[in-house]
């Protein structure tokens, strides 16, 4: 504990200020050499539970593939979709996965731009999460298409007859936005990995060495390379920020530009973006806890970092809750009778359970994050983060289904429509597909950024040095020695 004495210039009163050192994001025992060792170890032998997760995911995915092949062969009818219920779980889950993909970019790009250093140990896997959730979402676009073998009609590609996609359609905006976002976030993920791939290259043997050598593109860590790298990385980050905001805004226009009650809402774009960040943040918490255990990242995924992540999630959850309630309020006090009837139907009709489930899981449950015990107990936190995402999935479900069930035209009002096992199978398969890809990624590529954690250690040391210089000479002995050494 150190204190210094300041005198107020005008009042000439002696004010004693105490410095309570904040808990550091990384422990004092994290050195540069240890970082390399730990992260490289994650590429070799994870805990056995890794294989349990991987093969369960593979099994789920295989079942999803079976369902999709069945649907492809027989037609969309096997999904029990019908005249008003044309979209079902496919579009609901599509929005869910697109949403999941937003926080990775927020964490890596926005926090990078504002120099929030705590992101460094956890941004890499969040970015990987973004990439793989986008790949999963893209699957749903294809899965829900009646003639998926003609999917390329949606893309503006040069062809003999100069036929274009219909640029007024939000689905074309979707295809463009998601395509751009997927490409850029993949590029951003890869670019950020290059210095780490070089470390892997220097430590690997055989086929892996060949892979890393190819991917690290001759990275030597020279001054010039670092300078260029920093500029390029920052440029990408600045490019990605507006892109991330635009993508879910565009997805929300799928609904907002239509006439259906419950969709025709002006506040949809910010509401969707916040919902996306919300589910993405809870997804990051889930994966934080899983990776921490499976790959033994205890030294990097620490409690202070988790606390900051939880704070961010809570804040986003509150903004989302606000926007959701605003949507209900504008409908309630608005003059659109059909939309109001639809809102009442959501809360009291066939899908009331899903509606109130969403309210409970996504609006009430975040308040448990205020409890210290929840933040520090990883099992409870894992379950809560999953519940938050269940809530967000239900939110997407209840945007789609009740609106179709009670739209403008009374003849098509359906009671108690429920998706078939094929839809559920494909939804489950998508979770398998994501988990499988993600786990595979973490096994093959460094899921904690080595060079950025080293930067973090270095900055922490510099901070301590500066602090030590300020404090009393007699107390300077408390400051730990400069760590590191080996790069």
């Amino acid at each position, binding site marked *: 504990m150190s204190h210094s004495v300041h005198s107020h210039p005008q009042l000439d009163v002696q004010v004693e200020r105490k410095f309570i050192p904040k808990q550091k994001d990384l422990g004092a025992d994290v050195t540069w050499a240890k970082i390399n060792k730990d992260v490289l170890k994650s590429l070799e032998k994870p805990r056995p539970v890794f294989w349990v997760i991987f093969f369960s995911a593979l099994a789920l995915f295989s079942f999803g593939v079976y369902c999709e092949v069945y649907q492809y062969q027989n037609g969309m009818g096997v999904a029990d979709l019908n005249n008003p219920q044309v979209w079902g779980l496919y579009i609901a889950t599509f929005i869910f996965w697109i949403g999941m993909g937003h926080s990775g970019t927020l964490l890596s790009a926005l926090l990078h731009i504002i120099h929030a250093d705590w992101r460094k140990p956890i941004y890499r896997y969040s970015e990987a999460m973004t990439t793989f959730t986008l790949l999963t979402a893209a699957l749903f676009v294809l899965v829900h298409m009646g003639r998926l073998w003609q999917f390329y009609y949606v893309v503006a590609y040069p062809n003999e007859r100069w036929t274009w996609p*219909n640029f007024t359609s939000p689905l074309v905006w979707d295809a463009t936005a998601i395509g751009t976002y997927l490409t850029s976030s993949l590029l951003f993920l890869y670019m950020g990995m290059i210095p780490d791939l070089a470390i892997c290259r220097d430590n690997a043997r055989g086929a892996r060495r060949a892979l890393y050598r190819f991917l690290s593109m001759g990275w030597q860590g020279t001054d010039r390379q670092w300078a260029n790298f920093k500029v390029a990385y920052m440029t990408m980050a600045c490019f990605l920020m507006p892109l991330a905001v635009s993508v879910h805004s565009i997805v929300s226009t799928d609904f907002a530009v239509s006439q259906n009650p419950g969709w025709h809402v002006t506040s949809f774009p910010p509401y969707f973006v916040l919902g996306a960040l919300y589910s993405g943040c809870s997804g990051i918490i889930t994966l934080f806890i899983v990776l921490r255990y499976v790959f033994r990242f205890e030294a990097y995924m620490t409690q202070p970092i988790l606390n900051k992540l939880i704070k961010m999630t809570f804040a986003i959850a509150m903004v989302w809750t606000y926007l959701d309630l605003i949507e209900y309020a504008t409908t309630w006090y608005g003059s659109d009778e059909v939309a109001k009837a639809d809102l009442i139907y959501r809360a009291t009709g066939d899908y009331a359970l899903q509606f109130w489930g969403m309210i409970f899981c996504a609006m009430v449950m975040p308040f448990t994050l205020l409890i210290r015990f929840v933040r520090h107990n990883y099992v409870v936190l894992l379950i809560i983060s999953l519940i938050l995402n269940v809530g967000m999935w239900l939110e997407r479900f209840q945007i789609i289904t009740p609106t179709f069930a009670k739209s403008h035209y009374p003849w098509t009002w359906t009671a108690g429509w429920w998706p078939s096992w094929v839809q559920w199978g494909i939804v489950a398969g998508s979770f398998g597909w994501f988990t499988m890809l993600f786990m595979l990624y973490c096994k093959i590529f460094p899921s904690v950024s080595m060079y950025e954690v080293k930067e973090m250690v270095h900055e922490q040391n510099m901070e301590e040095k500066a602090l030590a210089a300020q404090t009393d000479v007699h107390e300077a002995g408390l400051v730990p020695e400069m760590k590191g050494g080996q790069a």
Partner: protein
Amino acid sequence: MSLSNLIQNWNSFRTRRPYEGQYDDAPYKWAMVIDLDSCIGCNACTVACYAENNLPVVGKERFGKGQAMHWIRIERYWGEGDTMTSEFPDHGAQYLPMLCQQCEAAPCEPVCPVGATHHSPDGLNTQVYNRCVGSRYCSANCPYKVRYFNWWNYPDRAWPNPLELQLNPDVTVRSKGVMEKCTFCMQRLRAGMDKAKTEGRILADGEVLTACAQACPTSAITFGNLADKKSKVARMWKNQQVDLAKDSQEKSEEGIRGYRILEELNTYPSIVYLERVRNLEA
């Protein structure tokens, strides 16, 4: 549509439809009047449509699941003002034949990602099966829910041998995964218009009818060319004081029965319904 064409004609893609006098110079604008007072709910129009347009009969189970393919359907209502002394209302049911309203500002058109549904110069909302990828956005955005999706591959089993011999050769048999809907019997119109063109005239009123209008035993459905001011349908629209380009119609006196369904959504449908007159005291 080439790139230069797209750039040159950008404004024509941004034209707001409909506008006053849109069809003044056009030879054709197909429209309909359906008199609910005459409709007895016999379903003859539906049957005629199935036969004319090669619609598959989906069977009881799939019908129950909401996967029916009836381009024109008879809706049965009993609503306010009905007394129910038995299982059915004392004054009987009300019937409403519902088919694609061929909206002038169709909600289905702008949302199709591939432009498979678009507006024809004679005011029809057309569907290009070969272009459709089956995103079903059009159906999601259609307020009348009159678009029907091929959930199954009907050519496989809907017409077992020798039933395929009764299919109408002028109409495509649709495969799984495409959207379809009422075309106002496009094949008949096309043949008629081509014939008239070779003869250097335009189609006379009543020369071509849709299958449903032709089959209706009470003549509840009137079909015709709205651009031809002397046609029966144009005169009925005028008498009912319904203007194609207006989204709310002012009537000079009570008792004029013409209305368009969900007009407040600014879809500008091409079908006018004549309200049923009910004598609840009788």
